[in-house]
C-alpha cells in the first residue's frame, strides 16, 4: 500500500469506516502473523496474537497521531503483545523446557500444532523456527523484531529498553547464532568455504 493511500485509509478508518480499516488489515496481516508465528512457534497462538493486535489497533486508532509511521506503531503493538504472550506462555509452560544456560531446546511444538494448510511450508518453518527455538529468549526477540518486523535499532531499543549500541551488538550475536545453527544443520545456502580464515586478522 502506498504511503498516501495508507494515510487516507487511516484517516477514514479513524472515522469508523470499516472498509478502510479492512484495507489496513489486508496490507499488514501477513507480516503481523509472520512475526507472531515466529515468536510463538505455534500457528494457533499466532492467529490469536494477530487478532489481538488488530483489535488493539482498532481500539486505539483514534489516538494514533502519526508521529511514528503506522507500520512502526503496528509492529510495536505486535512486538509488545508477542512479548507479553511469551511471558504468559512461559509461565504456563514447564520450566524444565529451559536448559541451564537459558537456551530453549528444540521442541516438537511446531510439528504438533501444524495445521494441514501449512504443510507445504513444513520444511521451511521447521528450519527457521527450530533454529529460533534454540536461541536464548533475548536473542530470539531481537532477531525477530529486526528480521520480521523490520523495526529500526532505535525502535527496538525503545521496545526492549536497551541502548542502541546493545541492540546492534546483540543483534549481530543473534544472527551469528542463527547462521551457525542453520549451517550446522545444513540449512543455509551458502556454506563457509574457508572456515579456517575466520578470526584471522584481515589487514
Amino acid at each position: 500500500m502506498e504511503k498516501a493511500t495508507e494515510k487516507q485509509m487511516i484517516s477514514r478508518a479513524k472515522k469508523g469506516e470499516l472498509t478502510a480499516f479492512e484495507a489496513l488489515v489486508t496490507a499488514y496481516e501477513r507480516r503481523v502473523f509472520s512475526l507472531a508465528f515466529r515468536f510463538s512457534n505455534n500457528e494457533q497462538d499466532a492467529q490469536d496474537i494477530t487478532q489481538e493486535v488488530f483489535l488493539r489497533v482498532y481500539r486505539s486508532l483514534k489516538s494514533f497521531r502519526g508521529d511514528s509511521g503506522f507500520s512502526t506503531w503496528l509492529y510495536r503493538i505486535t512486538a509488545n503483545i508477542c512479548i507479553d504472550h511469551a511471558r504468559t506462555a512461559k509461565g504456563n509452560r514447564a520450566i524444565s523446557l529451559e536448559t541451564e544456560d537459558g537456551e530453549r531446546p528444540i521442541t516438537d511444538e511446531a510439528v504438533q500444532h501444524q495445521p494441514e494448510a501449512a504443510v507445504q511450508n513444513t520444511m521451511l518453518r521447521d528450519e527457521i523456527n527450530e533454529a529460533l527455538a534454540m536461541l536464548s529468549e533475548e536473542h530470539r526477540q531481537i532477531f525477530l523484531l529486526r528480521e520480521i518486523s523490520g523495526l529500526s535499532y532505535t525502535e527496538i531499543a525503545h521496545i526492549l529498553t536497551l541502548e542502541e549500541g546493545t541492540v546492534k551488538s546483540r543483534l549481530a550475536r543473534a544472527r551469528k547464532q542463527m547462521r551457525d545453527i542453520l549451517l550446522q544443520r545444513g540449512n543455509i545456502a551458502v556454506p563457509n568455504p574457508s572456515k579456517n580464515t575466520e578470526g584471522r586478522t584481515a589487514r
Partner: protein
Amino acid sequence: MKDCEEYQDACSAYLDGELTKAEETQLKAHLAVCPACEAYYKALQDLHTKCEPEKVTIPENLHENIMACIMEEAQKNVVPIEKRRRRPPMFTMVAAAAVVVILATTGRLGDLTQGQEAFVQDSGIDTMSAQPDLEESSAAGRAADKSRIIGTEENTAESRMMSKAASADTDKQDTNAVKVDLSQVPASIIENVYAFCYIAQGTADMVPDFGGTLTAQDTSGTMSYFIIKNNMSTLEKALGKLQEGGYEAQPREDISGVTLDSKVENGLIIVVQQ
C-alpha cells in the same frame, strides 16, 4: 575494525543499513578480499530471505477471523441499543394510542395541536433540517408526554392507569445511572463524530431557543438532538439559555453510539423533555 569477528558483527549492521559511510566503505573493502567474511555476509542475506513473511503460509481464514473480531468490537456499542430499543417503542406506541383515545373523548386534541405549533414557532428551531416525519412522531410523543398532566387533571380510570404506567417507566429509568433512556439514538446521530455531548433535562413544555439546530428526534419526541458549533462562547451561551428555560445540562462522554473528538466542528446537545 581489526579482525574478522568485528567485520562479521558489522555485516549485521550493514544489512540493516545502520553503518556509517566510513564503516561501510571499510567493510566493503574487507569483504572484497576476505572470502570467509564474504560468505558470512551472504549467509546473513540468505537468512534474511528465509525469514521473509512471504515464506510463512498464513491460515486461509486469518483475514475473516480478524475482521469478525473487529466487527464484533464495532458492534459492541450498537448491540445494547438494539437490545433496549425493543421495549420503549412498544410502550410509547401503546401510550400514544391510548392518549389519542383519551384526548378524543375529552376533546383536548385541538388544544394540543395548537400547543405543538406554538412550540415550533416560539423555540425558533430549524425544523427544515429535521426529518419529514419528525413533526408527526413528535406530536404523538408529545401527546404521550401530555398524558401525565392530563391524567392528573381528568383523573379518569384510564388516565390513572396511564399515569401509573408512565411513572413505572420513569422509575425504571431512575434506577439506571443514565436517568435518560438513550436507547434510541438515531442512526444519523451515531454516524457522526462530535466535539462534546451534553444532555439537557427539563420538564418545561418548550425548549428555549439556545442556538442549536434540530437534527433528529426520537420516535417518542421527548428527546431532541441539536447540533451546535464547537465554540466555547456558543456552548456557554447555549447552556445558559437552556438553564434559563428550565433545562439542566450535563456533559456526557459515555453515551453508547456517540463518538467524541474534541477537534471536530460540531457538538451535540440532547434535550430531554421529561
